[in-house]
């Protein structure tokens, strides 16, 4: 019974990590941009949910409204970041890490000045409170919702990448930027769209986090390191790797935490990732190219 409960806890944590990392793997995969402000885009999504709840009132309606609007808010922030800073730095991917760290600092402080330093409360709708009992096992509805939402996001993204012309362009640029440009794909436009979608996913992740934890200026920093580890372990350029890595990390954390403590579990997960990268330096799944890296 405990094992099944932990299995669910792990998958649930994995789905949270997946939502946080999905957008990252897109922007990191396509442009090599390491967006440390991704966590703050999540925070922006969470505050979007807070603001909407303040306006709408009903927790259920506001949650359903917040998901698309969080996507738009996160996406617009990403677009702004891309247009003002990132686009001039594609040749210096490592430097984007530091620039976006600066952006993250500023966004956090802005949130503090606008919404105040204390956490704010976003109520969960009534239909998400409590748990579903299955054979004596209580599965919290919020976590089931997040799991389902993560699946929806992954499927939607996979379909978008596979079946739409836009998706094909994105995949082409991920796999070989120069070749794609040579074949007439405007990588500028594709980059913008990718950044919009990737950052928008952060916004969605932020909205869902309001169901689980605190909504405050530092919401994003709690997730950013883990999200990057997921991307690194998963490998660049394919959703599959990100999904597996997120779930593996979630399960590892849950089971290590169960048998040791939460602190030790975090350290063990890190050790496991370093060991894993010894076996697969490019992550779980990687698009191999012939070019001299």
């Amino acid at each position: 019974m405990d094992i099944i409960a932990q299995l669910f806890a792990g998958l649930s944590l994995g789905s949270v990590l997946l939502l946080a990392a999905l957008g990252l793997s897109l922007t990191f995969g396509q442009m090599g941009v390491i967006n440390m402000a991704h966590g703050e885009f999540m925070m922006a999504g969470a505050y979007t949910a807070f603001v909407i709840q303040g306006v709408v009132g009903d927790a259920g309606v506001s949650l359903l409204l917040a998901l698309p609007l969080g996507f738009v808010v996160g996406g617009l922030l990403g677009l702004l970041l891309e247009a003002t800073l990132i686009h001039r730095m594609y040749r210096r991917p490592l430097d984007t890490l530091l620039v976006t760290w600066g952006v993250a600092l500023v966004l956090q402080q802005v949130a503090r000045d606008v919404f105040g330093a204390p956490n704010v409360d976003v109520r969960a709708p009534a239909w998400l409170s409590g748990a579903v009992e299955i054979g004596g096992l209580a599965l919290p509805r919020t976590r089931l919702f997040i799991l389902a939402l993560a699946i929806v996001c992954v499927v939607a993204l996979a379909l978008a990448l596979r079946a739409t012309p836009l998706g094909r362009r994105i995949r082409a640029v991920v796999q070989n930027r120069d070749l794609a440009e040579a074949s007439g794909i405007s990588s500028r436009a594709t980059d913008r769209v990718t950044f919009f979608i990737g950052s928008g996913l952060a916004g969605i992740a932020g909205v869902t986090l309001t169901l689980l934890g605190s909504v405050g200026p530092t919401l994003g920093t709690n997730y950013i390191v883990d999200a990057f580890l997921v991307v690194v372990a998963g490998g660049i350029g394919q959703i599959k790797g990100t999904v597996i890595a997120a779930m593996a990390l979630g399960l590892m954390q849950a089971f290590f935490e169960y048998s040791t403590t939460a602190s030790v579990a975090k350290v063990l997960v890190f050790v496991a990732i370093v060991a894993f990268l010894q076996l697969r330096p490019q992550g779980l799944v990687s698009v191999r190219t012939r070019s001299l890296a």
Partner: protein
Amino acid sequence: MRLRSTSRYGATRLSTVSLAALCVVALSACGARVDAGSDTSASAESCVDTSGDTVKIGFLNSLSGTMAISEQTVHDSLELAAQEINADGGVLGKELEIVSEDGQSEPTVFAEKAGKLITSDCVAAVFGGWTSASRKAMLPVFEAQDSLLFYPVQYEGLESSPNIFYTGATTNQQIVPALDYLVEQGTKSLFLVGSDYVFPRTANKIINAYAEAHDIEIVGEEYAPLGHTDFSTIVNKVKSADADAVFNTLNGDSNVAFFKEYKNVGMSADDMPVVSVSIAEEEVGGIGIENVEGQLTAWNYYQTVDSPANTAFVEAFKAEYGEDRPTSDPMEAAYTSLYLWKAMVEKAESFAVEDVTAAADGVTFDAPEGEVVVNGDNHHIAKTALIGKIGADGLIHTEWSSEEPIEPDPYLEGYDWADGLS
């Protein structure tokens, strides 16, 4: 070619010479050595200037970083107390001049800024600190400089520095009464949940000792890293342990995630009440009233305390900072700390540290929480313990009271079961 290498040696020589010079100066500048064991540190001469119409005091709170959420509130109530005192003629006729510093939520910065306030700004006393880490960081600074710190937050005890006055609760004024209350309610088993740092660890050590002596079973003890946000595993353990109550020493954001998860798996105060010692009125809003309604807290002050002094304090605070701002225990303790210092100074008729500490014993103040008395031996104050229940209005209502102020006992020397704890 020869010339080129000469220039290289030239480079080496210059750097060698300057290095050597520095080393020589460094070694010749050695000061006093300590004899092992003896404590003969030469304390610096105080530079506090009381000749004018004003006297400087320092406020040292984290106004940025993760702790700013909590410490800003303390800072605000300190400012309020200073304003009131100045409006009322100051201390010994001198107006208070505030030097405010930001501790940036980092112990190292607290130590640095404490040094600055004492030696550069020459303040007569410093008020502030929140985390145990920040207090521990400042303690040696205040002792070395023989200056005064007023620390306004409940903490883990096991400390009494001659240079610190502790106006928050020590363990026998908060944790022990909370356990007494639980025993009174018939609690037979407890689950301990805490953040992984010094206060929860020490608190749980005390709880374990208490439990052993009072026939309570500790069915689980879990720690989450500070800032931990995923509590499904820990809440799973709590749920399956099925204790009579949960004793919660989690800190900050973790409380939000814990209580949301607690509610999400379908548990409430009716099934398994949670007694928290770090959730005050400020935090309730952020956690969400619906998630903590009916849960218990242990403090020495609530905004709902019914006393003329508290009515005045709450009114003044809301007038200054807004109707929506609640008042909480650490804020009240900070507010009280400034008045206590004023009372000590006035009793001693001096701002000098040794005079103030000498006069401290027995100084009283009619604080919002009720009358408090300074214990001159351990520098803590006698406080009344209050167990509260979080109401639907977001405020905390007294459920149980120790009735009398409890004498501070930071080392729990007066409790038989606590032998061997420290």
